[in-house]
């Protein structure tokens, strides 16, 4: 093949594929320029830190949605500002209705006591997403807030390093606005679960969930002519909360004893972390005793106590389902 033929072949090739060749050239040129720019871009070093406000401590891959991050920070800043100023009413008004009612009895003075316990003097704060979870259809974002003195201004001179803290919860309401709970309050729910027999009626009315405890409001009705003993410390696990994987004992150590035909309403508290992945399924009264005679347990001989238990009219356990 001579030079003229080669030239002809080349011209034929270019004529046939001219559009393709031009597109390829332009794309290659753009990639080339981009590569040039990226290679010579100056990247400023950044401070590596373990502090990520909106990454959950329990699962660092789980973050609060970006759309909520800034509003949460602003809400907290405003809330702490009001508390530091002593403007308790404005701070109280920022809380969700459930929090005001179930955490503070809708009482500004109860709220003030709480704030003064956490922040007796104006404080700085540090916010950290702790855990994110779902309740019903709502996403709850639980943060830990630490309140501390301005140690940078004092260098901890004549001071001991200390801080107070609480859990704050944020969620979106039906209108898409962000609501806030403080004081470790997470949510309230009605239960309305009843379990009963001829001697006793157990009515679990509602529960208040805080970060590390659950509190159940319960009504107990003695239907019999006898004393009904639910808890007096003589048996193991007299009152417990059944979870998916284990049971928890009631925190209170007070006796629960019903006189004939007596009806009482009381609260029962159980230790349980809201983000432990376990579900509360039932409230259990494991050693209910219907007593023909009952002398109590204070300064009563052990033989007498045992005699009365052995001669109880009835002994049974009772359980009320409480799954949300």
């Amino acid at each position: 093949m001579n030079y003229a033929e080669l030239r002809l072949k080349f011209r034929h090739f270019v004529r046939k594929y001219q559009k393709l060749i031009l597109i390829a050239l332009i794309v290659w040129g753009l990639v080339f320029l981009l590569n040039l720019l990226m290679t010579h871009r100056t990247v400023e070093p950044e401070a590596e830190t373990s502090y990520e406000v909106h990454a959950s401590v329990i699962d660092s891959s789980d973050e609060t949605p970006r759309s909520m991050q800034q509003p949460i920070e602003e809400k907290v800043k405003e809330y702490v500002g009001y508390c530091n100023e002593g403007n308790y009413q404005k701070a109280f008004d920022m809380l969700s209705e459930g929090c005001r009612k179930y955490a503070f009895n809708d009482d500004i003075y109860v709220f003030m006591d709480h704030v003064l316990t956490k922040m007796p003097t104006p404080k700085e704060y540090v916010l950290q997403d702790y855990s994110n979870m779902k309740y019903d259809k709502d996403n709850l974002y639980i943060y830990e807030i630490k309140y501390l003195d301005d140690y940078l201004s004092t260098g901890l001179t004549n001071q001991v390093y200390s801080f107070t803290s609480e859990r704050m919860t944020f969620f979106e309401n039906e209108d898409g606005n962000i609501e806030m709970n403080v004081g470790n309050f997470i949510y309230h729910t009605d239960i309305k679960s009843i379990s009963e027999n001829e001697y006793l009626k157990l009515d679990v009315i509602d529960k208040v969930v805080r970060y590390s405890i659950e509190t159940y409001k319960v009504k107990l009705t003695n239907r019999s002519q006898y004393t009904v003993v639910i808890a007096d410390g003589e048996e193991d696990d007299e009152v417990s909360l059944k979870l998916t994987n284990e049971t928890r004992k009631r925190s209170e150590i007070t006796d629960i004893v019903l006189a004939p035909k007596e009806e009482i309403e009381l609260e029962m508290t159980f230790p349980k972390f809201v983000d432990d992945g376990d579900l509360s399924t039932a409230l259990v009264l494991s050693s209910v005793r219907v007593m023909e005679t009952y002398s109590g347990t204070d300064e009563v001989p052990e033989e007498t106590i045992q005699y009365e238990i052995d001669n109880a009219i009835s002994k049974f356990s009772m359980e009320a389902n409480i799954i949300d």
Partner: protein
Amino acid sequence: MRIRSSKLPLIILVLIVIMIVLTIIINRIENKPEDYSGMTDEELATAVQVKVDSMELHALGAMEERDRIEYYLGQFIDALEKSKYEKAYNMLNENFRKNYFPTLEDFTTYAKTKFPMMFSIEHTNIERNGNTYILWVNVANSLSGKDTAVEYNFVIRENDLNKYELSFSVK
């Protein structure tokens, strides 16, 4: 769009030449060595300081968090050991200065009487609160031994890389 095939080789050639020229120009600008020969002493000192600061910044960026905070404390102590009291004073948080050392003279007097000339330090604890770090440090005179150690708290707030302010527990 139909391009005249006779023009296309020319277009290709021009594009290639432009890219080669661009690459050469950019590489020349990037790799052009600093010409220090015509600089005054002051300009030279500034240029060198800029280089040192840039290297320091990159080194800090590669450090882990705790090492970086301890480095900042090290800078403060270094300034004290070299009697650069104004430099150390300027590292202090403004409110802290107002509270404890309203003037440079107050701080200098304190540093000369309370801090050793040669530091021996032992880090015993560190707590992080946001971008503020609290350090527990045993400070001893390295010429006198560990028995002279006094525990200090140092509080360091890192506002950005190599931009920090600090305070300490005044004895």
